[in-house]
């Protein structure tokens, strides 16, 4: 029987020790009316060979279309070493390092992860991971409300150019505590600074901005950060870790730097994998660390005075503080954080910079080839990183459908979330989408436009 080692002799001997005559007796405290007839709907067991064949055929059916969608998940090359090591049994099948002495591997990895994230963002301390970028953003908002003692507000001012699904998730997660998001509108594809000026003097717990923004553009983060601080708000930075290899980090935004940085760690060696598992990160200034959600690893000394690692500042957490914890999070995304750590260690700053530069160059190339087609133009003049908006002369949906039939995933249709942008398409070319791929996309797009013309 799969995954159960008991022989008939074992069972007999074990039942004897428990003083019962069958396994069924062991369930005799379950009141009879609650008993289930069985699990017929589950069906018969498949052997390993059978399930392998089934899953392979399903995977094959899905195929591997050529993907130019970004919008929060990016198709970077993942070095083979990353998951070869991350899926070693000792990492894969361990749990939260409650017994520190028997978990130094996981603990040291997380300490290194924290160090790398702090380094990338230019801030002081990181936690051990959150579920994903969206929940990391929501937790950052909650944290900001707790940490901002100067503000009485339960409102966060959020750039409309911040990932729409992040804003939706935050709305869901803040709602119960009566915290709300107020939108800072768009102007020319970036935050509207005039609208911001008009809000001066209003009380917000925090101001949140994404760099590069959901639309791919680079925001004037210094001005936004300084505005936040001038108005008694904390500054929350939502950032892409690949971009941080080349862009000024949150710790250096404005005069004082952002207070909290968060985001999605998926670009760091994590496959797109239909949306997860990814890894959220949250980094902040030292002063507010005790408001952090989630686990944190610290370095300390053992009985002999040798250094070692352990979970620390646990008084913030649900298993100690219960209803007054900084968050309810318990299981986080440890293995994915491990993979991200290995990825960052392999690439280093130089490798990550090469990736960032290639993404940027490829996306520029893509934009220029697509915009060369009649009926397609870039609506903004802002610098962008590795995603850009294109304006089409016709509705985006049918264009994407036509491309998809040719095996090209042409980008993200912005019309649902940004109707004000008209027929707008968000495209992305990472370092894995080279000239050949870009030409293939442009050719398909040419056909679609030609065909429909």
């Amino acid at each position, binding site marked *: 029987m799969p995954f159960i*080692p008991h022989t008939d002799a*074992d069972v007999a001997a074990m*039942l004897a020790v428990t003083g*019962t005559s069958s396994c069924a007796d*062991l*369930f*005799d405290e379950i009141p009879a009316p*609650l008993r*289930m007839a069985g*699990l017929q709907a*589950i069906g*018969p*067991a498949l052997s390993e060979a059978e399930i392998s064949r089934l*899953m392979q055929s*399903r995977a*094959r059916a899905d195929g591997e*279309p050529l993907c130019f969608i970004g919008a*929060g*998940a990016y198709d970077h090359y993942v070095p083979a*070493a990353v998951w070869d090591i991350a899926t070693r049994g000792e*990492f894969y*099948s361990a749990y939260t390092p409650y017994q*520190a*002495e*028997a978990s*130094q*591997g996981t603990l040291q990895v997380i*300490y290194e992860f924290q*160090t790398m994230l702090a*380094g990338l963002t230019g801030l002081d301390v990181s936690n051990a*991971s959150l*579920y994903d970028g*969206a929940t990391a953003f929501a937790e950052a908002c909650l944290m900001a409300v707790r940490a901002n003692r100067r503000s009485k507000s339960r409102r966060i001012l959020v750039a409309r150019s911040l990932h729409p*699904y*992040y804003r939706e998730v935050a709305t869901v997660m803040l*709602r119960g505590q009566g915290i709300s998001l107020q939108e800072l509108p768009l102007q020319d594809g970036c935050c509207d600074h005039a609208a911001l000026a008009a809000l001066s003097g209003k009380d917000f717990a925090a101001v949140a901005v994404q760099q590069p923004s959901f639309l791919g553009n*680079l925001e004037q983060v210094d001005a936004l950060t300084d505005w936040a601080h001038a108005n008694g708000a904390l500054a929350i930075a939502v950032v892409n870790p690949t971009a941080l290899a*080349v*862009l000024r980090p949150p710790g250096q935004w404005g005069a004082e730097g952002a207070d909290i940085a968060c985001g999605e760690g998926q670009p760091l060696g994590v496959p797109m994998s*239909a949306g997860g*598992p990814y890894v959220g990160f949250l980094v902040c200034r030292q002063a507010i660390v005790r408001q952090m959600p989630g686990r944190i690893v610290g370095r300390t000394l*053992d*009985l002999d005075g*040798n250094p*070692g690692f352990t979970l*620390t500042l646990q008084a913030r957490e649900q*298993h100690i*503080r219960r*209803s007054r914890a900084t968050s*309810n999070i*318990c*299981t986080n995304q440890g293995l994915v954080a491990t993979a991200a*750590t*290995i990825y*960052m*260690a392999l*690439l*280093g700053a130089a490798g990550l910079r090469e990736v960032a530069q290639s993404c*940027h*160059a490829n996306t520029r190339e893509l934009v220029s080839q697509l915009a060369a087609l009649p009926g397609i133009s870039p609506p903004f003049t802002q610098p962008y990183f590795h995603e850009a908006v294109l304006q089409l002369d016709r509705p985006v949906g049918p264009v994407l459908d036509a491309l998809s039939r040719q095996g090209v995933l042409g980008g993200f249709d912005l019309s649902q979330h940004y109707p004000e942008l008209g027929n707008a398409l968000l495209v992305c070319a990472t370092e894995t989408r080279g000239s050949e791929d870009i030409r293939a996309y442009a050719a398909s797009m040419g056909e679609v436009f030609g065909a429909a013309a």
Partner: protein
Amino acid sequence: MNEQLIFAYRSAGRQGFAPRASGTGELPAEFLRQDEPPLPTASELDVVRHYTRLSQLNFSIDTHFYPLGSCTMKYNPRVCNRLAMLPQFLARHPLAPVEHGQGFLQTMHELQEMLQTVTGMQAVSLTPMAGAQGEFAGVAMIKAYHDARGDSERTQIIVPDAAHGTNPATATMCGCDVVEVPTRPDGDLDIDKLRAVVGPQTAGIMLTNPSTLGVFERQISEIAAIVHAAGGLLYYDGANLNAILGKTSPGAMGFDVVHVNLHKTFSTPHGGGGPGSGAVGVGDKLRPFLPIPYVVKQGGNYVWADEHSCPQSIGRLSAFMGNAGVLLRAYVYMRMLGEAGMQRVSDFAVLNANYLMARLQDEGFALAYPQRRASHEFIISLKQITRDTGVTAMDFAKALLDHGFHAPTTYFPLLVPECLLIEPTESESRQTLDAFVAALVAIRQQAYDDADAVKQAPLTMPVRRLDDVRAAKQPDLIWKQPAA
């Protein structure tokens, strides 16, 4: 046995992996970073060697018995990982059109249906990324339900005193007040106290059954009746589902909403602390409020249910659809178990726990609930030993490491003094359980012979006992480059 920090490999200009830039950036200088982020500069070999060596410093299921109560540390079949990592699944963009994902979506749909069957619920959403997020989804749905009926004074969530910390923490995150109800000495809930606290302010109750005390709450139908009569709903924390697969279900017990920890019952890896998955199931009442997206069948195709088709949904809990890769692993595992295998999981998880409990009782260890059956886990209290020798549950935990066993859960639930919550799971053999008993007996013997020796444990780990107080008082949370 120790391994230096990866930053010790720093050597300016070294690079482990060269992606090759296909062009250089042309970004305006004002946006550019001037400093070099302090990432490691190690060769590929350095990196492989470093993390391989670090991995060896861990205990894990693949190397050690890991009877961590409440966590269901069962074997994680390697094939689940293999199949979840098929290239097409890994390459799938979360926003890719459904036409390019019917294989994946069908799999998710079948997983939803299997979880419905197992939990006795009417609909399932797979999006929550761990148990705690499943709890959040559940309580948020309960609130949404009351709100939708205009019943908006219901702000209290009842939890037993033995509840897992995520339960009260979740209630708070949802803006509810927490009301604790005590447990009786026999491990069941004090139902009179429950009656006393329910009322028009009751949003619901969160329960685990079997409870975190390792026993099956026998009055569950009565509890359901009381809470329902008061207008509240029942939330089932599925952390302990491994004990009842195919025996009973949250649905049969009267629960309205449930989360399932796929990383426990359905054997997806714990990964040193995640990722997990906390899929939620609901009865018909809560169906409109399920978090999106989930998969529905439309004609012959699988499509996403989203904000348009589910206007009353509590909304999204993750940027995309939760931990898809974890869900794939759970699916593979469940299909390999099949109906009979799934029932056997609980048969043998419960047999192992009761056997281990009986063996320890025979050896003279004090059970927290000696009159009760163990569910898939049980509690022993070392109170008497601590009183006699000063050796605590923590000392036992550390000494077990030297015997080659991961420790059980210690000091949880809080109401049993000096407790060990022991969950062997079905995938461990009798031989392993016997060796574990022998280790506990040996440690107790040592406690009486030479208590100080036990307090020195562990001696065979990469480090000796760590100074947690120092860790918290002088937090050293990131490595800083020593001044040159």
